[in-house]
């Protein structure tokens, strides 16, 4: 397919963005990401190990930043200040890299986003020149406000992070998509390939997922399934589905020319 996903002026042929957490080891991480075809991968920023494990291999050796577009996140941040501080460090870590995923959480049990803090962090980050892809609730008003602030993509949840509960409110997602002039990606909640396809059929520009692949019984096979689901969902959206004709069947075979009893 020639049509591309464009985020902050850069085009990507893959509309599947993947996380790099929760895998058995870096070899599995790499194999799953290769199978997914993803070009954008999220990473977390954490205190480095000081001491015995200082010589241990790092994620960057398995996913060279030259090969993938890194999307450093602010997972685990519960305030705008912490999120901004984390992404400033990420920019330094990745040599001035500007594309980031902002998420500010509001509750450790549900990991539900705190949209007030998210908006406040987004304002600072946009002003400082970051290209902000922002994780948020599926509230259409908040999504629009984040766009107006200058975020480069808005990423509403399908359901709670890591829950695999699928798309709980397709109607809200549809409102967000209809209102947005920037890419809308579903981030969080996708559990299986069917969920990913539905997100794309709704008209999402892409899907970001981690646990749905990493926690599958066979993560590498699931990564391949997700790749196909994203492509199938996108093509189904572009092709335009037939209208639903409730309680009104229409035969696919001709009604004329039937043999009749003599």
């Amino acid at each position, binding site marked *: 397919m020639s049509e591309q996903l464009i985020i902050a002026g850069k085009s990507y042929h893959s509309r599947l963005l*993947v*996380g*790099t*957490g*929760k*895998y058995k080891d*870096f070899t599995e*991480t790499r194999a799953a990401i290769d199978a997914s075809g993803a070009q954008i991968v*999220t*990473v*977390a*920023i*954490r*205190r*480095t190990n*000081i*001491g015995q494990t*200082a*010589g241990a291999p*790092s*994620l*960057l050796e398995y996913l060279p930043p030259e090969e993938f577009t*890194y999307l*450093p*996140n602010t*997972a685990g941040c519960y305030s705008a200040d912490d999120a901004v*501080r984390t992404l*400033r*460090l*990420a920019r*330094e*870590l*990745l040599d001035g890299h500007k594309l980031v995923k902002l998420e500010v959480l509001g509750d450790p049990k549900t990991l539900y986003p705190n949209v007030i803090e998210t908006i406040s962090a987004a304002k600072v980050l946009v002003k400082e020149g970051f290209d902000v892809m922002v994780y948020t609730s599926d509230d259409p008003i908040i999504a629009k406000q984040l766009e107006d602030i200058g975020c480069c993509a808005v990423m509403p949840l399908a359901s709670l*992070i*890591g829950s695999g509960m699928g798309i709980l409110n397709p109607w809200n997602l549809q409102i967000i998509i209809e209102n947005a002039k920037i890419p809308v990606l579903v981030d969080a909640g996708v559990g299986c390939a069917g969920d990913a396809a539905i997100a794309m059929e709704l008209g999402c520009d892409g899907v*970001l*997922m*981690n*646990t749905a692949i*990493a926690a599958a019984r066979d993560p590498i096979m699931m990564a391949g399934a997700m790749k196909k689901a994203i492509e199938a969902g996108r093509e189904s959206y572009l092709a335009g589905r037939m209208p639903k004709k409730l309680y009104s069947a229409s035969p696919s075979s001709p009604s004329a020319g039937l043999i009749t009893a003599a």
Partner: protein
Amino acid sequence: MKISINGNVKQFENEKLTISALMLTLNLTGKRLAIEKNGAIVPRSQFSEVQLQDGDVLEIVGAVGGG
């Protein structure tokens, strides 16, 4: 001198210590890391010049798997 690194206070014999020298001591040389000293980011290009002082608070971070 005492320096807090990622929340743990460490004692160093050295009177003078640059960030580069500290990284060598901690076996972190060559790793892709970002460092914050007393709340301000120290650009990697300045690691060899910035002198650490008793009581400095450092955060040393890297990229790890995450979603």
